[in-house]
């Protein structure tokens, strides 16, 4: 990889991404948890005395939504598009006939889109947290807990983005495959007992949730159903290694494969 080329591609797609209509759409999608948080908070104001407190709602509703749905959807649509949008738009030629090596193209685009998604995710999580925890905004523990959750989501987002980047380099119907993988494989196999659940990325993400560390599911009981967590260090290392392997494989495929535009 050429460092200058990586920076140029990153800058190019940060710019393209900022102008794309899709970015606005997904910013709105990532705002859904904030909307839900606002609705919940409004209903609590109009019906005081609701037994469920803000932190519980944040972990059980918002975190569950972000982890089980939002990061998958964001990673799926951005990851698979890294190569596919250049082929469908027939713009790949402009990139591959420049002195920017193909590894830089994949990694630069991954980094640019990854940054966009992290900003969307952070905005979504932090705003939802603020809305649901208005009365606890001065509590450092609450903030630390939220930041820990955000870290897990960010790691998951980057790992899934790498996986879908790889899928997009060699599959024609990568979105369809991604939907099956996200809402079929990942959402089902994670609940299988024994070692099978370790065949999902979600298993390692859930192993990093606070409930998994303490062994007392409590507020995260829904998320932790059937979970036999891996140690935190193993989970983090596995996610990082898998993301690196997916990206390396994506670069390799992109270098070797020839892409032919449909007439």
């Amino acid at each position, binding site marked *: 990889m050429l460092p200058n080329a990586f920076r140029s591609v990153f*800058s190019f797609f940060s710019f393209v991404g900022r102008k794309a209509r899709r970015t606005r759409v997904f910013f709105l999608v990532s705002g859904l948890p904030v909307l839900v948080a606002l609705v919940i908070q409004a209903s609590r104001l109009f019906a005081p005395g609701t037994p469920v407190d803000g932190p519980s709602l944040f972990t059980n509703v918002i975190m569950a939504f972000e982890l089980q749905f939002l990061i998958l959807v964001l990673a799926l649509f951005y990851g698979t598009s890294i190569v596919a949008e250049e082929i469908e738009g027939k713009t790949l030629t402009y990139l591959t006939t420049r002195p920017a090596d193909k590894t830089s193209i994949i990694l630069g685009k991954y980094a640019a889109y990854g940054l966009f998604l992290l900003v969307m995710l952070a905005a979504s999580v932090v705003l939802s947290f603020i809305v649901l925890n208005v009365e606890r905004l001065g509590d450092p523990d609450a903030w630390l807990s939220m930041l820990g959750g955000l870290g897990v989501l960010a790691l998951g987002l980057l790992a899934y983005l790498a996986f879908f980047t790889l899928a997009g380099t060699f599959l024609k119907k990568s979105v369809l495959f991604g939907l099956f993988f996200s809402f079929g494989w990942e959402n089902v196999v994670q609940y299988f007992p024994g070692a099978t659940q370790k065949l999902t990325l979600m298993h390692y993400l859930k192993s990093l949730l606070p409930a998994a560390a303490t062994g007392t599911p409590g507020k995260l009981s829904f998320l932790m159903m059937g979970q036999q967590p891996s140690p935190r260090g193993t989970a983090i290392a596995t996610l990082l290694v898998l993301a690196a392997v997916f990206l390396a494989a994506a670069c390799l495929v992109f270098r070797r494969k020839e892409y*032919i535009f449909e007439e």
Partner: protein
Amino acid sequence: MTAVIRTQSLSKWYGNVLGLSDVTLEIEAGITGLLGPNGAGKSTFLKLITGQIKPSIGTVSLFGEPVWNNVRTFARLGFCPEQDAFYEEMTGWEFLTRLLSLQPYSAAEVAARAARALDFVELSKDKDRLIRGYSRGMRQRLKVAQAVAHDPQLIILDEPLNGLDPLGKRKVIRLIKEFKEAGKTVIVSSHVLPEIEALTRSIILLHQGKILAQGDIHYIRDLIDKHPHKISVTCADPRRLASAFLSEPSILNVQFGPAAGTVVFETRDRDAFFGRLPRFVAESGLDVEEITSPDDNLQAVFDYLTGK
């Protein structure tokens, strides 16, 4: 002269479909026209020499180096693709500067080169408009601009005149000739013979994935001129026109066309016919509505050359 592009037994299949077969050639500096009907293999050849696809068999080199995944060669190459594809949300200026920034230039140099390229294709005053609002001609010229903005030694233009109006074609032809005068190597593909004739004498004829002929356009013209040409003239008095030309030795056949007022001449000497026709029209005061030459359809000429 040293060959800029060299191919050896270059062949490409798309599954069972033959794209290019056993092409061995050398292309030197100057303008080379790549001529062939649609589906002849022109775009496949250009994709192979620009490293977008891999040869099934054979080799291709630019400036003496292999091209596939070789970023060094891309710094010296400018490619204008056939497809009308852009990052539509960008302005012309953004498109050029962002692509230029993929080269190792400073920000000031990127801006200077983009301004120069836009000026060259006469798009400076429209540079801040979104590309999606550009006309076909403007889009075509913007594609040319991105191919030349980094001042490459080799410029490859895939059907650059496609879809342009006559004025737009003239502009692009003038630009291409300026590249040649600047000492560049230019390859231009087209399926329209007169377009290539307006640009260069050095051509490569491709047909069904194979090189049919290569060299000076006069040689190709001679081949083509052995083929009887049909010329259709629509005028107020077709009988008078037919009788005037019937005695011409180069005329092989005269028929009245299906449309009213149309007469179709078959001749072995197209140039003689087109030399005589304006004189006759001027002398007789005949009102001519339309002159067409169905044989200018390149496919007909290729069918003749390949003995179909």
